[in-house]
């Protein structure tokens, strides 16, 4: 392949980079920030379309891969970026942080995730990860007059920097062992019996797990998540809890299943222990939260645990179940956050659980939507959350991890309590104050779309499962 046709494979990333810069510059020309929001929304849509027309293939000596797997993840990123833009418009105005950079940062972060999903090389992966992370650090601190937001950004940055350093160290250890950073070449080296049992490899794998564990907020590398999720502007929290997490899973899966699939290191055992801890800590700590953002932060930690089951299974079924799970998770989690954002106004923040008291009386439609998201996060049919969990459990059982699934279902029964608590507050208590609701049209569209998706996938998931399956050619 000549240079130009190799570049073709990278089209979506190039478009995204270009458009993100256009959005950044547009800020200088337009005073009206809605225009910028619109422009960035259109940009994501354009990139999504371009991506469909991009030929699949590997570029630059397997450093960059455009395959079905990457495509599926990129669509998760596009959807979450687009939804985030939709739900940000009014929030930024209300919170008085309506700066145009916000949108370009979302685009840059998405670009970083896209590169991660397509990375066939550890250095490429690192580049994408840093681009994504640096943009989200800024986004987390976007409410700069609020000490909590600043604290969130700083914390995220400090711990993120640590994890990046660990990632780099891990990459260098793997390099010293395999002599390459190309993932598919590492796989070849790992297969070679002469190389087995090397201490460097073990250490490298452990370091990579730590770094990726940080990105997907798996226990014990989750400490940053609750504070950052609580402090960051709510749309950013929604975005962070879905996009970067999915990107983390994309690289985790590619590196471990393709790269170390046949390594003698028992990374599945390490991940199993992590999955159990993640589900346990996430669900149990969520029980006692009174701030809904914090509660959802712990819940998103727990959900990473469920998705990990698919990776641990390490079968094609497992990987596609994990992809399907993250896809579904995007809708239900951003959906729940959207309800939180809708309740945010000048007078109330809508972040304390008390703000939900009697919501069913004052805003019946909004509470019904929240009810759907909460039951979906619990995994009760006929919502998408059930189908997601079901498929993951099925794959894990088929791979022989019945004990893990038993632990997972026990924790998901525990999780029912804190999701139900929100429903309880909304439906079974009397309202103390009436929150004024002035939803922007974009928010209304977004929240109804997500509800529709949650219910549709809950009843007829076939298309999406099939999609995840066919895309899953690593």
């Amino acid at each position, binding site marked *: 392949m000549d240079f130009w046709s190799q570049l073709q494979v990278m089209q979506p990333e190039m478009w995204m980079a270009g458009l993100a810069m256009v959005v950044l510059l547009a800020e200088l020309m337009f005073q009206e920030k809605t225009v910028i929001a619109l422009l960035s929304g259109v940009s994501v849509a354009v990139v999504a379309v371009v991506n469909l027309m991009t030929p699949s293939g590997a570029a630059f000596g397997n450093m960059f891969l455009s395959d079905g797997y990457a495509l599926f993840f990129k669509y998760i990123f596009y959807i979450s970026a687009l939804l985030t833009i939709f739900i940000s418009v009014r929030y930024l105005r209300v919170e008085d942080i309506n700066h145009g950079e916000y949108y370009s940062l979302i685009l840059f972060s998405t670009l970083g995730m896209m590169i991660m999903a397509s990375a066939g090389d550890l250095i490429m992966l690192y580049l994408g990860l840093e681009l994504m992370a640096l943009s989200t650090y800024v986004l987390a601190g976007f409410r700069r007059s609020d000490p909590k937001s600043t604290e969130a950004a700083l914390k995220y940055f400090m711990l993120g920097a640590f994890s990046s350093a660990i990632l780099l160290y891990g990459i260098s250890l793997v390099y010293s062992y395999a002599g390459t950073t190309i993932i598919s070449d590492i796989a070849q080296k790992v297969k070679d019996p002469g190389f087995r049992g090397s201490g460097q490899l073990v250490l490298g794998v452990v370091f990579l797990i730590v770094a990726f564990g940080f990105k997907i907020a798996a226990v014990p590398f989750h400490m940053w998540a609750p504070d950052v999720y609580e402090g960051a502007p709510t749309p950013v929290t929604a975005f962070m809890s879905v996009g970067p997490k999915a990107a983390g899973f994309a690289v985790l899966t590619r590196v471990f299943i393709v790269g170390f699939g046949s390594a003698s290191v028992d990374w599945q055992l390490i991940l199993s222990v992590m999955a159990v801890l993640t589900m346990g800590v996430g669900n149990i700590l969520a029980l006692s939260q009174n701030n809904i953002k914090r509660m959802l932060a712990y819940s998103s930690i727990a959900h990473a645990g469920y998705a990990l089951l698919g990776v641990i299974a390490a079968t094609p079924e497992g990987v596609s179940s994990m992809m399907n799970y993250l896809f579904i998770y995007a809708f239900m989690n951003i959906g729940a956050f959207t309800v939180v954002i809708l309740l945010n106004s000048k007078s109330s923040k809508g972040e304390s659980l008390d703000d939900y008291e009697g919501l069913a009386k004052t805003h019946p439609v909004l509470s019904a939507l929240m009810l759907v998201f909460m039951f979906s996060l619990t995994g009760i049919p006929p919502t998408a959350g059930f189908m997601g969990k079901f498929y993951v459990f099925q794959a894990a059982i088929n791979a022989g991890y019945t004990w893990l*699934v038993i632990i997972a*279902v026990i924790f998901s029964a525990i999780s029912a309590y804190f999701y139900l608590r929100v429903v*309880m507050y909304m439906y*079974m208590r009397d309202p103390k104050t009436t929150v004024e609701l002035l939803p922007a049209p974009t928010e209304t569209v977004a929240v109804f779309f997500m509800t529709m998706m949650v219910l549709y996938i809950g009843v007829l998931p076939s298309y999406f*499962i099939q999609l995840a399956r066919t895309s899953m050619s690593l």
Partner: protein
Amino acid sequence: MQSASTLGYPILTTVIFLPIIGALLVLCISRGKELWIKSASLFLLTLTFVLSLPLFVLFDKASHSMQFVERQEWIPALNMQYYLGVDGISVLFILLCSLLGILCVLISWNAITSKVKEFYISLLLIQGAMTGVFCSLDFILFYIFWEAMLIPMFLIIGVWGGPRRVYSAVKFFLYTLVGSLLMLIGIIVLYYQGGRTFDVMVLMGQQYPFSLQFWLFWAFFAAFAVKVPMFPVHTWLPDAHTEAPTAGSVILAGILIKMGAYGFLRFSLPLFPQAAVAMAPYMLALSVVAIIYGAVICLVQTDLKRLIAYSSVSHMGFVTLGIFALNAQGLEGGILQMLNHGVVTGALFLMVGVLYERSHTREIANYGGLASVLPVYASFFMVFTLASIGLPGLNGFVGEFLILLGGFKASALAGVLSATGIIIGAAYMLLLYQKVFFQETNPKVQGYTDMDAREILTLLPLLILVVWIGVYPNAFLSFMHVSVSDLVLRLAEHGAVPLKALEAAALK
């Protein structure tokens, strides 16, 4: 064999989805038009009932195979089908379900005053889901209906219930969810062991090794025992029944707790015959404990609804006793008693609801001498009380008699012990009747109006059923004869436990 096509419409789909689509219609009615909402729900559920009647008339009683079968691809990616059908075990429950639905609307007509729209939507949704449980022949379809039912039920208890409603609702939800999730694991394991299918009929056609049967039996037990509820996982029931609004109690007592027993009949026995035979003694023991324990607790209850709730524990103990007697009499008695209990306990909860609307108290001590104030009400209550005790000529007698017969055959000790349950049962129900309806007229109850036409209309169908089943049980037993004898045959054929497997299990 009846198939859906000869009828002109897919009857099972209609009965399941008419209420669900109806819920969407009610959703569109504006909040203020409460009368419209109520009338629409009543109309929809009545229509559902009428459309379900052909099941009763056209059901082929000579066949043990599935009838009115509907089968469609549903989620091909996961090998799930939309597969419905009924046999002699399930058909009557669908009818009971659609009948009780109407009564629930009628009894709630004036009782529910807040969030009226949400209430009727929940009622319609739960109606569809419950019917779905009884006719699903695909495991995942079954599981989805089984779980989906929890959402509206949680709301019905938690939003419109009594003072401790939230606690009860959450307790109910968590208990059932834990059980169901363990069953889900069992279902997935069965899927792989049975050749990657969720088709219940195909899965039933296979033999599984004893150790597998053993574990799966317990996984399914977790779900079904909680729903029944069997001792010792019954503790959610008194709370949920007591705190739920009348319609909720009726659904719980009438249909929802039958699902556990139905699950044993439909899945546990035919799928895991060896495990069922091996575990039967333990199940019998748990049943006897439930019978006696539930009955004794009833003696000391001071709360009307709580008393009836605990009597459910005792009565459902009879049902599981009959089922795990594993003989034709026991099984038929068990199924009939499930119906009876649905009718009688449903009726008793309706009666309490009628009274509660007037007095707003459930304390037995607040009543007395009602017979002179509310004569019609007292007569109705008398019939249902006697039916609950098991007076010959009323429905309770037939079921309990068959169960005891089967129980004695299986284990004389269990039979004797459970018979004492009937005696205590008579004691607490008659004591209740005496305290509420006779004795000095409590000044608080003066001036209550007797039942009006709506209330009589609500209870009359159940009264007719009580007498009908009592006098001519064969009208109902004839539905299940063939299916039950097929099940008994199956248990006899495949239920013998290889001795080696038992020893191995004992060593474990």
